[in-house]
Each structure stands twice: as structure tokens, then as C-alpha cells.
């Protein structure tokens, strides 16, 4: 049986962290290999943290922010979006499959959406043979 993919989720304090709490209240279930790190805003997440996570053994990283237009800090999630674009492109530049990173919008009242995103990424990573894994295996 394949190991559960380890996913680091950077969750915004105002939306997704609250949604993650609500997921608990609603007893929604999701894979146990997801680790949530609370941040004040998705715009706070420096791309370097994402890269570090992937380099240090995370299979995937997911940054979760408020829906566009609903940022607690006016435009932090727009910043997260801009950062996500460069992360996606840079990961490829750095030899890491862009699929291992994802940006998701979730409001504090959408635990189902959050859980669905968690599950989807987990399943994708479990099923997916990312190009660099293939390259590595081919090289060995």
C-alpha cells in the first residue's frame, strides 16, 4: 500500500483555519497526513516556505486563502495569487512538478470545500507519478 502523501496546508486564520475548525465540528473526515500551519493571511506565506516544505519531504503544499474580494486584509489573497503564479512557474524551473503546489480559496463557512481540496490533492498525489519522480526512477 502506498504511503499517504504528506501535505502541508498553510491556512489563513480568518477563512480556512476557521473552516478547518468547522470541518471538525461537522465531523467531516479527511486524510490524516495533512498538516495545517496557521498563518494570519495567505499573503503572508513566502514562496520560500513552500519550496522548503517540498524540499524537506512534503509531497504537496496547499495554500488556502479567503475568496478573492473577501480578504480580511483587503488584498492579501491577491498577493497570494500572484505568489502562487510564480511558485507554480518556479517549481518547474527548479525541477519540481507544479502539481505539488496548489492555491485554494475557501471561506470560513465552507469546510466541505476545504476538505474536498484536501482530499483531491491527496488523491492526486497518491495516484500521480509526478514527472520528477519518474525522472528519478528512470535515472536509478
Amino acid at each position, binding site marked *: 500500500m502506498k504511503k499517504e502523501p504528506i501535505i502541508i496546508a498553510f491556512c489563513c486564520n480568518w477563512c480556512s483555519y476557521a473552516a478547518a475548525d*468547522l470541518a471538525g465540528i461537522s465531523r467531516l473526515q479527511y486524510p490524516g497526513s495533512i498538516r495545517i500551519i496557521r498563518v494570519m493571511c495567505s499573503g503572508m506565506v513566502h514562496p520560500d516556505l513552500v519550496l522548503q516544505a517540498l524540499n524537506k519531504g512534503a509531497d504537496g503544499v496547499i495554500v488556502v486563502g479567503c475568496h478573492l474580494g473577501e480578504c480580511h486584509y483587503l488584498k492579501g489573497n491577491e498577493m497570494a495569487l500572484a505568489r502562487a503564479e510564480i511558485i507554480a512557474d518556479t517549481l518547474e524551473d527548479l525541477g519540481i512538478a507544479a502539481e505539488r503546489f496548489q492555491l485554494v480559496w475557501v471561506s470560513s463557512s465552507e469546510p466541505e470545500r476545504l476538505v474536498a481540496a484536501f482530499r483531491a490533492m491527496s488523491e492526486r498525489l497518491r495516484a500521480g507519478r509526478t514527472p520528477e519522480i519518474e525522472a528519478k526512477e528512470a535515472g536509478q
Partner: protein
Amino acid sequence: MSEQAMIGSVLVVGGGISGMQAALDLADSGYFVHLVEKTGAIGGAMPQYNKVFPTNDCAMCIISPKLVECGRHPNIDIMTLTTVIDINGGAGDFTVRVLEHPRYVDSAKCIACGQCSSRCPKSVDDSFNIFMAKRKAIYIKYPQAVPLKYQIDPQACIRLNEPEKCGICAEICPPGAIDFSDRGQERYLRVGAVVMALGFQPFDPGKTRAWGYGLYPNVVTSLQFERFLSPGGPTGGVLVRPSDRQPVQRIAFLQCIGSRDKNRCNNEYCSTVCCMYAIKEAMTVKEACPEVEVTIFYLDMRTPGKEFERYFEQARTERNIRFVRSRIHGVEPKGQKGDLRLHYINAHGRQVEETVDLVVLSVGLETPDAMVRLAEKIGIHMTPDRFASISAFMPVHTSLQGIFTCGAFNGPRDIPQSVIGGSAAAASVAALLNPVRHSLTRSLPPPPEQDVSRQEPRIGVFVCHCGTNIAGVVDVEEVAAYAATLPQVAHVARNLFTCSQDTQDLMVQQIREKRLNRIVVAACTPKTHEPLFRKTLKSAGINEYLIEMANIRNQNAWVHSQEPELATAKAKDLVRMAVAKVSGQTARKPLRISIAPSVLVIGGGVAGMTSALNLAEQGYQVYLIEKTQQLGGNALHLYQTWSGEHVPRFLRELREAVQQHPLIEVCYTSTIVAAGGHVGNFTSLIRTGTNRKRTIDHGAVIIATGAKRYIPEEFEYGKIPKVVASIEFDKLHMHNETRVANGKSFVFIQCVGSRNRQRPYCSKSCCTHSIQSAIKLKKEAPDRRIYILYREIRTYGQRERIYNQAREMGIVFINYEQHGPPRIRKADNNVLVEVWDHVLHRPLEIRADMVILAAAILANPEAVALATMFKLPLNRDGFFEEAHAKLRPVEFHVDGVFVAGLAHYPKPLEESISQALAAAAKAGRLLSRKEIALEPNIALVDPDRCDDCALCLGVCPYQAIKLAEYRDGEGVLRKTVTVDRILCKGCGICQGTCPKRGIDVAGFTTAQLEAQLDAALEAAAPAEEGRP
């Protein structure tokens, strides 16, 4: 009343949520509070609930911080097991005689170790669990109880009934706290005002055999069901049938048990909350076991509150809960296995029989007899429904000056209305006792803070069982043992409820004894509980920010409830992450800023004027901004309240009071064009009617910008002159215009523009409004034919009386829910209304002289601009979204800004006034302090890393980062990046931008996030890559 004679303390009777709120607001506003509770612990009914609607928050979880806040407030004296015997005196100076019943346990000594209870030989039915579980004769009311002190049930205790027997508890109690000789004692309290938050009791359906309650084990009340669903309840949250403990397949909820019922009981009123709680309970069942069939049998679904309609809709469409409009008159057993049979008449008028295996009786609310007697003794007028008699204009004032009421004692209401009532009562008391504010309060300076920032981290880890919430899934012992192995961890403890007050005391003790300087609490979510633990750290003399919570409940035990091993492993990871993070936590000093003692109230309607007047009476300068030339707002169109009180006269008096108050400045034809600043120090730019601009400095803001009315596009409105909206009709009616005067046939159409796809919310006041108009028409000329075409009649609370009255008067109510809205066309001089008669089951054509449309209430479109200026959220319908729908109903996440009235959501006048008073209470509570401490969760520049490259300047959404110029030691002009501590909101966008980690949000530094990351991935580090 001379000022010298006034007393600066307040008695709050009733420790439920409403009383607690009043007590907290008053204690924070400069008054000493005696909080009298008749049971052994405060909390009222809320701790018994599993979840609350419509947020689905865990009830215990959200109330717990408030319980602790009350418990540790230096200006709240909680008197449990205490009843009020008599109140004498008058406003400003009452003498209250109270009786403190014996607890038989010395609260000062009890450490709540529970050994007494575990050894007590006597078990009795537990009333907290509605007699479905047992408790001992010595017990605590519930695990998180405040105060957490054991008490002895004198009826059950062997020793108290048979001297010389038993007495085990006294023998084994470690601190020797048991005192069988305890006697009740009377005390006299001198207070300036009294708040009666006497609460309610659930209707007892056992009074009649009709529903089989007490006869068949599988008939339970909604409150019992609530306990079944609760993880802390008798079944640990697992739903089984009481009779055989088998899984439940089919559930029927029967609504209006003990409400809207003059036959089986004398409760004519609607209990307001039962529809929503039934949906909530049904949804909880469906979430856990979607295959269970749930049916709710109802008369009208009364979901008029904010976000309620969506909740109802979600239950119906997404959760597949069946709603059947029918009253069930009887429940019979079927077979020997405990199944139950129901008969009802379906929508087609046919008799149907159905079998279920559990019946939940949605019982109503009523005032306990003892409370009615107390009210009568004191002289408070009561309504026929046995609730406090209050005016819609003064919704927390009793008939006695200086005595206020709130909560369900004022009529059945939900939690937010009770919280609002508590705050509103506090505002009214504060206005009354303003001259003696701060005269009796004591401020306990927090113990001096020891500087631990340079010490090596000595981390204390507190692992919470949360009853069985966590411990039922996670092996907490293993987690605790693991935590002890982590670096820098100096102490590990496990607690049944880490948030309970005794644990707080224990934590303080352990922090001191073990010289802990960083704390990890592995429990629930920091969103709700971190403030509580911060105070604990403060009490222990260490900086309150040296804490981190590991969320092992909401984000672990609850989401991996079927995988205990995984959850235990994850809990260890989460603890390790928290330990890693907290070791990088630094002490922070809150930013103290002075507060401008003035308030900007935006909107000169009833809500705005009420807030303004109360705050002025509390002694604060108020600027009341009204965009038109006159005060009054939407109330200018109203003629009477549901109870028949005359609105224009009230409005006139209110307006005069406002205009004449020296502390209120009304700015007519003015609007806000820009706003800046922050709690305590806002600056707003006003454009006046003469197009002049003016700047106002103020410490708080109340938004009371009202709402708009919907201009119907349907029902030939605007095309047929005899089709009018209800507000227009009121005017015509008042002037006895010929169309009305000569009219013989009137048709009211409800829900015009409400509860549709575009506006999936109920406008709340239209049913009552139409019925009142109908009654008036009928009274004027009893031969008038009056029809009300509706979907649900939502005369919640005591308004039910006028619904009954209307029906008795022969007003015809026709439900068009099933067969679609009526069709309207012009016929000669009349209007022809076609509708399906739901009783006769045939189409009906009504020739009407007038058709009155109950048009929706819409959010004020100007709210958008205001929301942007003050950085406030709006909900999907355009109304302002409060900080928390249940417990913070007038506040925002932005400190110092409050909301009241229709700007928040459609509501009747009395609720607007209540909310306006509550908003005033919150603003007053803020302004009563000379200064406030701002959360220091702001970006800090690390001078060792920042090189003033200025990249962060442009990204700051608050323009809080600036390049300051200075001259260095050699006199060279240099620039350096600085953060404005007040403008900064701590979002960390700068942190996400800075390539050198030169700027970090305190508490979320990149180093800390990195430490968490490393800890999370400790086990996952990739294998060394292939080297040459």
C-alpha cells in the same frame, strides 16, 4: 434621586448567557456585579446543547471562554445556589435579600479532584442530561462548570438524610472541603440597579399522554435528543434508541410541543427557537448518518433570522430532510420493539400513517413558576404568556424603574437575542448609574511580569482530554508521554478540560512552580480559546503571548474520529509543531493607546437615535450622522408596534430627547466620505449638506444605516393602482383614503421579494405587519373580506396572539407555498386574484378592492461604501456581517465598530432598539476605559536583517510601513524601514515579500513557521539524494 445616593453595583439575577453577558458588559464598564445563580454553576441552558444554529459551532466550546471570563473577573461576584427573596428600594439604591443555599462543600477548599464523586455510593438521575444518565449525590453540574466546585444534592445524599451514615466523601476529601453542617444563609446586597435574566424552562410534555412522553422510551424531548447528539452526553454522541440502544433509522420531529397550543397547555405563543433547533438537530443526525430518514412535522417553519432561511433550504435540498406541514396529535406504539406510529393529514388532505423508531418532541420554552412568583413579588408586570411585560420601545425595562430584564424571560428568544438583551440591559443600567461609574469596582493589577525572554525555553505542555472529545479518539496518555520527550519541554500535564476554571488555576500554579516560560496547550482551536489561556499566562506572571495551541480536537480528533491510531500519531506531530513554534515565541507588550471619549453614530433612524441617546446618557459625546434632513429613518413609515403601541409618538419623543441632549450633535444631510484610524482613535471625514467637509475624531463607531424597501416588480405592482405595497397601504389606511374606506375585499400577499432565489432570506416583520393591518381593517368594518396569502406565517414569540386573533376574526389565510404564487389581473374596477385554496384543495378567485404586497426589506446599497471605509464584511445579502452570529451579535472583527438595526438584518422595531442599546453597551464598555491595549500582533522589523531596501513599502495594504530618515553617528542622512504600530494589522504581506526575513509578524515569524514546518516534516525528510 440624588447622585450621592446611587450605588455603583448591580445585581444580575440568572447566570445564563443573557445574564452573563449583562454581567460582563457591566463589569467592564465600571460597575461591580453580583451575579446570582440558583444552581451550582453558571451557564444556563447553553452548556446542554450540542451545537448552535446556524453556525453549527459547538455550544460548549463557544460559551466556555465566557464562563471563564465571568469566573475570573475581578468585578463579578458569582453567587451560586442563591435565590432572590425580595427587592426593596428604588432606582439607584436597592436592597436585595438573597438566600444562599448550602453547597455542603467549601468552595474555597474544593480542588475539584473528583474523588468524592467517584466514591459516592449514591447515584441519581442527572438533570443536566435530562435524566438519561446518572450522577452522584455529590457532583458538579457539568465538567466545564464555573465555578468548578462540587456540591451535594441534599435530597440524594445519604448522610444528609440519615445522619451517622455514609460520609465517605468527607473522609476521603483531600483538602477536607466537605461540610455537612453547612446551612443556608440570607444576605443583603445594596445595588444601584437590578437585571433580571431569569431564563426559561423547557415545556414538560409529560403533562399529557398525547405524545407518549414518559410512556414510550423512544419518545424524547429535543433537549434530551440534544444530549444524545452531544459527545459529552449519555451516549457519547452516538445516536441510539433509548429503548434498545439500537441504531436509529427513522426519526420524526414533532414541532410546537407546548407552543402555539391552547388545548394541551396554555402556551399560546410561539417559542421562536424550535424550528431552527429541530433543523439543527436533524442536520447533525444527517451529517453523521446520511442514511437516517428524518422528517420534521411542522405548522409553519419559522426561520426568520439572519442566515436561517439558507439553513432551512440547505436542510431540505442538501441534507434531504423531509418537511411535512401537519400537526401530529398523537403518537402510538407499534409492535413490541419500541417502534412508534404517527397519523397525519398530508398536503393533499389524505390521512397518512407512518412508522418511525424515534420521536423527538420539539418542546417550547416557558417561564418557571418560581420566576413568575418572584416577578410578582417584586412587582414586575407579566404578560398573559407569563413573560415580563415590556414595551417595544423599552425592550429591557420592566415596569419598575431601575429593574431591567433580558433573555428568554422577556419572551422566547434565541441566543443572539438573549446576548443582545444582556448587553442592552447593561447599556440601560450604565446610563442610569453613570454618575457612580467606577465607584465600587476594583482593579486587580496583574502580577508583575517576569522577563523570561532571555531564558532558555522551559516549555509546559498541557494536553486536554476535552472530556471524550479528544480522549475518546486520541490516546492522550501517549501524546503526553511523547510531549515529555521533546526538547525544552519541562512539564507535561493532562486535563479533563483544560479550559475549565480550576485547570486555569492549576496551570498558574504549575507555571510558577516549574518556572515554565513557554506554554503549549494541546486542545481545541486558538480561534476560540487562545484569549483565555493568555489571561492564564498573565495571571502566572509571564507574558501572555508565550503560548501556542496544538489543535488536536477540531483539526484532529474530530476529523479522524474513525482512525484513533492515526489521530494519536497526528496529535504528536501537532504537539511537536506547537513546541517548535512556541520556543521561538517572544514576549510582546500590548500597545496602549488613549481613547477619544466620543462616538460616531451613522444613521439617524430609531437604532441610531437609541444608541446615541444611551451613550449620551452614559456621558459620552455623540456625533449622529443623518443623510436626510430629518431623524426617524424607516420608522417614519410605521404606525404601531405588533403590540399596538403608537410609533409616531414614540418617535417624536425620541427625536426631541436626541435633539435636546447637550452631548449629542446631529449632523443632518451629511454622509461619511472617508474614514481612517482604529479603535479608540478614528477620524472620519464628513460631507455636510452645504458640501462642506468636516473631520470628526471619535473613539468608536456605530453603524445604523438602516435598510431599503423592495419596489415590487411582480403582481402588476405599478400597473394596477389598487395593488400597493404595505407601507403605502398604511399611509392610505391612516388617511382613510377612498380606496381603503370603500374597500370591502382586501388581499394581502406575503413574501413579495423575500425568500426567493435572489433574496433567500425572510424579511421577518411582514407577517406581523400584514396581520395587524388586516385586524385593523376588520375591526373598522367586520364585513370586510380579508385574505392573507402566505407561505409560512411567522408571528414568532408572543406575536402568535395576533395571528390567533386574526383567525378568530375570520380573516382567511391561504397558503400558496405548494401551488405557486397567486396570479393577479385587472377586472373592471377590481383586481382579480387567483390562488389555490390549500384547505379546500381547489382554485379560488378573489375579487379584491385592494391588493397589499408585503414587500421585502433590502440591504442599504450604501453599506458597500461604508464597509470598505471601515473594512467591514457584508454578508451575501448585503447586510453587515457581525463578528459572531451567536455571541458577538453587534460587534465586528474590526475593533471599535458596532452595528445595530436594519443594517444588520431585517427586524421589528423592538429588536432594533435592543440591538441599538447593545451596540451602545459595547461602545460604552470601550469608552469607559481611559486607554486600551491593542493586540501587538504586528510586523516588526529585525534591524539585524533589514537593509532598508524598501520592497515592503508598496505592498502594505495599510500604508503602515514607511522609510524614516535619521542621521547616523557620522551625521549622514540615512533611511530606515519603520512600521506604524497602530496602522499595522499584522497581515504579514510584508513578511511574505521580504527576501531577507527582515520583517516578521510577531507570533508568526518566518522562523517560527519554518520551525513548525521542520517539525511537521521531521519524519518525512527525503532520503539523501543520489550522489556521484
